């Protein structure tokens, strides 16, 4: 038992957990034909069968039941405001399965040259709203209301001590739906993690229909024909949003330190703060000299990297790996798409730079509150 718990504690460390998710992701949700072939060969597509659903849900529930036997796990998971997130985990598994099982079924029908499941012949296949839709709605409302009543009677809403501005709790956490962003505060400054990044997320979401202009695949579940866009969306939604929320909620304890699910939240545990900036690495460690006093010279390595990332990479990719993309999307759509993708990719990149090189900032200009 204890060996299993310490194993879970060990592998749920973001370094390992996130790497495993990152490596496994393209095989579970393949973005290209090559990954799709491996995905089929390894039999991962069987996750989206009934048996697959039962196994996934059973493992998750078994883990929670096992975990509730542990005091540390119980304390965090049963916190009233955290209960919806446990529900969210199960719901995400179920609805990912529900959409992909239908998508794979339709993929097969398309391969066989048959119409998809949602195909209908207007006007013969139309049904009347009264009663066919109205009664579905009524039953949903009644069931949901019953569920809300049971939830509300069973779980009292949390009310802690009266507000006291002079006594901050450790850790102080934002509401759970913002914990993915709060997790990003570990790797970025507030101006980016709290303001610019959310703005990019909103703009990026709104831009989706204007970037993915392929009119096919509307109105029915499918995977194969929309592989790349589905894979990108699922990565953002499942990994960058929900996995980070789960980490931020369940695995971040005092001083925002990392704690495994079965670990005691020790507020006196010391974290070594040895993070260094790129300028310090470059001038002091590699060139063995002092930091230049001119800000622009001091930050030249970081500025150069950022310039290469944002000004050189997009045109370079347009000429090479993403050539077909560039031709299909045109220069405006292509630029917006690639820049948004780079901003998205910067999140994991910065995480790994921190874990492996203790890198704090690529560009550090505290004089202007500008650290990135």
């Amino acid at each position: 038992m204890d060996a299993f718990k310490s194993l879970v504690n060990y592998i749920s460390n973001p370094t390992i957990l996130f790497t495993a998710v990152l490596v496994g992701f393209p095989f579970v949700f393949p973005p290209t034909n090559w990954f799709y072939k491996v995905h089929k060969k390894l039999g991962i597509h069987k996750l989206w069968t009934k048996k697959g659903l039962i196994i996934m849900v059973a493992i998750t529930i078994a883990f929670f039941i096992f975990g509730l036997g542990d005091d540390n796990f119980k304390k965090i998971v049963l916190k009233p405001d955290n209960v919806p997130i446990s529900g969210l985990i199960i719901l995400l598994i179920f609805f990912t399965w529900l959409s992909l099982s239908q998508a794979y079924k339709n993929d097969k029908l398309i391969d066989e040259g048959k119409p998809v499941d949602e195909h209908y012949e207007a006007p013969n296949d139309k049904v009347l709203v009264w009663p066919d839709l109205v009664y579905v709605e009524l039953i949903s409302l009644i069931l949901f209301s019953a569920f809300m009543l049971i939830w509300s009677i069973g779980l009292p809403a949390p009310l802690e001590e009266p507000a006291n501005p002079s006594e901050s709790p450790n850790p102080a956490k934002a509401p759970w739906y913002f914990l993915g962003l709060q997790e990003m505060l570990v790797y970025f400054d507030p101006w980016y993690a709290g303001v610019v990044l959310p703005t990019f997320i909103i703009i990026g979401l709104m831009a989706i229909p204007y970037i993915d202009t392929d009119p096919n695949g509307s109105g029915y579940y499918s995977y194969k024909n929309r592989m790349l866009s589905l894979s990108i969306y699922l990565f953002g939604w499942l990994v960058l949003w929900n996995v980070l929320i789960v980490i931020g909620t369940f695995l971040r304890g005092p001083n925002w330190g990392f704690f495994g699910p079965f670990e005691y939240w020790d507020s006196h545990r010391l974290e070594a703060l040895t993070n260094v900036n790129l300028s310090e690495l470059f001038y002091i460690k590699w060139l063995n000299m002092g930091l230049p006093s001119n800000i622009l010279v001091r930050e030249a390595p970081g500025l150069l990297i950022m310039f290469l990332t944002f000004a050189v990479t997009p045109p370079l990719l347009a000429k090479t790996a993403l050539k077909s993309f560039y031709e299909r999307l045109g220069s405006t759509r292509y630029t917006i798409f690639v820049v948004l993708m780079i901003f998205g990719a910067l999140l994991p990149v910065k995480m790994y730079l921190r874990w492996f090189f203790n890198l704090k900032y690529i560009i550090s200009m505290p004089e202007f509150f500008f650290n990135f």
Partner: protein
Amino acid sequence: MSDKKNIFEKIAEGQIWKSIFRGGGAPKTRRQRMMVVLNSVFLHLHPVRLPKHAVKLKFTWCMGGLSFFIFLILTISGILLMFYYRPTIEYAYTDIMDLTEQVPFGIMREIHRWGAHAMVIAVWLHMFRVFMTGSYKPPREFNWSVGVILLVLTLLLSFTGYLLPWDQLAIWAIAVGSNMAGATPFLGAEGPGSSLLAIGDINFITKASDARFGLIGGRFLGEATLLRFYVLHCIGLPFIIMIFMAVHFWRIRKDGGISTPV
């Protein structure tokens, strides 16, 4: 067959019933069933007829409808809570305490809080479904963007409500969130570029004039913040979200109803 009618049939054919529900009577024929939808201000959010997959839960997940339904639950329970809750530092916490301790079987606050969590999840899952069925594709691009705004407004509604119990959980969650506003580029006192907005020695963006100050109504979380969040939560944001919801629902109909395979 006897001509005797039971009480329900009599009511359904009487003058009062017929005047309220245009047409009257139980809809039995196809024509009557279509007229029910056309004649009702609420039901005519829907079209009269739908493709058959649009009534299947495995296709729709019912998450859009559920989000709207939860919004109604939250509005009603929220109005009831407003009768008992005073948004001042002196009373806020004790009023919530009273709701918990003085009302036997009182679950209005639970319904409101868990409903808020449920609405966030329902809106996320609705978006997930819409993406998975490719329903953001033309001609529905703009309605997808309206949906993104509704998502943001849902989160803001939940966030502003989080402060109102005025307990430790509330103010420190809002402290974490509102400190971000102080780091807004150019407009936050601790944001990059704010020192550039100055004439000579006079800074325009200070702790008493930046984005954070505007959000919480002062340098520190206090009376003004509570009132500000209360007004935003109860009046300001619901007003805005209802406008966007109207556009969202109207555009669903105008863009051809639920998405279908071409």
